[in-house]
């Protein structure tokens, strides 16, 4: 595969997320990188380990009314409301471009019911260019009173099984941090057959505008992302990586190679860059270069030596 050759000139950056082989450990996070084409003119997409596209539902979604975003200290809250074109238009309108990329494309999926998750997965099965599926389980389960799938071990396991049963490619389950003990959910999802885990999704937060005395977001609450959440994300990755045997992909406030390397040391096999794409569209390219530099400077034979290598005690 052409896209995997980029690491051969420099240090060995290849990582394996189960059977999904990446040229380097840097992916772009769902919802922060559009359908990749938006960034094509601004950076070299082929330097990425992989691209994770905007979350796809069974039917198109218009999303929430404005305002959808608000800046907070070292971060931002968003309540976009999962606006997307739906799986059918995604396949016909977005996949042809993505299929042409020499980079693994991971499709993020979401649903309101188990059946929806299963149906989207079935429609994606056999679509050329889909390297893996990432499952967003932070959505409310409409058949269980709107409790998020990802906050209950049994429901999280059920979604994982529903997707695994129909999937033709590896399945990565994206965990919600808005839980009492994320390792419990992680183990349940692993037992249900997930090939890998990615964490964390956004932390639920809120901001109030003092002039209007209204919530800053039309949706009242939203997901916090950006550097503000990095220590929380790093802690959760550390805990989950020690609780499961499947690979873990770290997400949360990463905007530099240093941040990414911390996540690898904490136990992540790869990382996703999210909010930072909004501020510097080239950031993921810079993170890949920075990781390569570190691997070289530290005389490592491979970036894989860093995974989980945090020194304790």
């Amino acid at each position, binding site marked *: 595969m052409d896209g995997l050759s980029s690491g051969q000139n420099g240090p060995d950056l290849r990582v394996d997320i189960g059977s999904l082989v990446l040229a380097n450990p840097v992916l772009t996070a769902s919802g922060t990188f559009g359908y990749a084409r938006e960034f094509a003119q601004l950076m070299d997409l082929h330097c990425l380990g992989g691209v994770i596209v905007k979350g796809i539902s069974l039917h198109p979604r218009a999303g929430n009314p404005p305002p959808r975003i608000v800046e907070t200290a*070292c971060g931002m809250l*968003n309540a976009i409301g999962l606006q997307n074109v739906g799986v059918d238009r995604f396949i016909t309108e977005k996949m042809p471009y993505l299929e042409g990329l020499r980079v693994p494309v991971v499709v993020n999926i979401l649903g309101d019911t188990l059946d929806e998750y299963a149906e989207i997965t079935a429609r994606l099965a056999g679509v050329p260019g889909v390297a893996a599926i990432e499952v967003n389980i932070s959505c409310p389960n409409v058949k269980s009173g709107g409790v998020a799938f990802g906050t209950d071990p049994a429901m999280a396991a059920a979604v994982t099984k529903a997707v695994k049963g129909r999937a033709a490619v590896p399945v990565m389950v994206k965990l919600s941090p808005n839980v009492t003990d994320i390792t419990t959910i992680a183990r349940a999802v692993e037992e249900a057959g997930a090939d890998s885990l990615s964490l964390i999704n956004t932390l639920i937060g809120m901001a109030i505008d003092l002039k209007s005395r209204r919530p800053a977001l039309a949706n009242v609450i939203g997901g916090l992302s950006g550097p503000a959440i990095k220590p929380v994300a790093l802690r959760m990755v550390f805990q989950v990586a020690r609780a499961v045997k499947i690979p873990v992909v770290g997400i949360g406030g990463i905007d530099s190679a240093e941040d990414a390397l911390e996540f690898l040391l904490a136990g992540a096999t790869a990382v996703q860059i999210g909010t930072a794409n909004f501020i510097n569209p080239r950031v993921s390219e810079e993170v890949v270069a920075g990781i390569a530099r570190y691997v070289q400077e530290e005389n490592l034979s491979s970036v894989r030596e860093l995974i989980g290598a945090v020194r304790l005690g």
Partner: protein
Amino acid sequence: MAQYQENATVTRVEQFSAETFRLTLQAPQIAGDAQPGQFVMVRTGQGKDPLLRRPFSLHQTFSDGGVQLYFKVVGRGTEILSRSLVGERLSLFGPLGRGFRYRPEQPAVLIGGGLGIAPMLFLAREISRQNSSPASGCQVLLGARQKGELAVVMEDFAQYGSVHPATDDGSLGHHGLITEVLFSLPLPAAATVYACGPEGMLAAVAGHCRRHGFPCQVSVESVMACGMGACLGCNRPASAGGYTHVCLDGPVYDAEELLWMV
């Protein structure tokens, strides 16, 4: 269309009132490609707080590679920006969005209210530059709180057309709203109206144009994180149903495309 991330050097800082500023920066790639009505995303600092870039309409570009931003201090980002020093470097990303679809050969009425003055200078200049008959200059209506915000920019606008000012405190021009000036002004036949300003002003201008049969384009403001269609944070309701995204579909719209949030 090409977009650039440029480390732009501040070459001039002007202060027009307690909270109104104009920055001139060297950003040759952006200056070379920008169209009136387009915007840039500006990083106000190097650190993680404030985190997001801020969107600004291009006030003016220069053939020497300069770009100008006209802004008011409304929050932390603009407050930091207002303290910029000559020689300092700021990251600019742009030019972004869809600008004005102007027809230089036809009469133009430009209306800028408050911060909405920003994109109008660039538009006035381009219309004037491309217009083969200099006698039919633009009509420029500028509204502000007080004289200081207008005095200097009025001189710039005067090169391109006749300027009609209005101030909230009556310190310059009409004492009252800029829309009152518009309503009292006989508009030339076949004129196009271009407006930028607060939502209420735009709604009033759009309504006036609809009633009198003048085509109207508006430049609207929105919070946004990325400015390039990735975050989907800058939506607003469209008259055709659903949402439109200011960063890609705008910031300039035909007024009829939008529902007013007033």
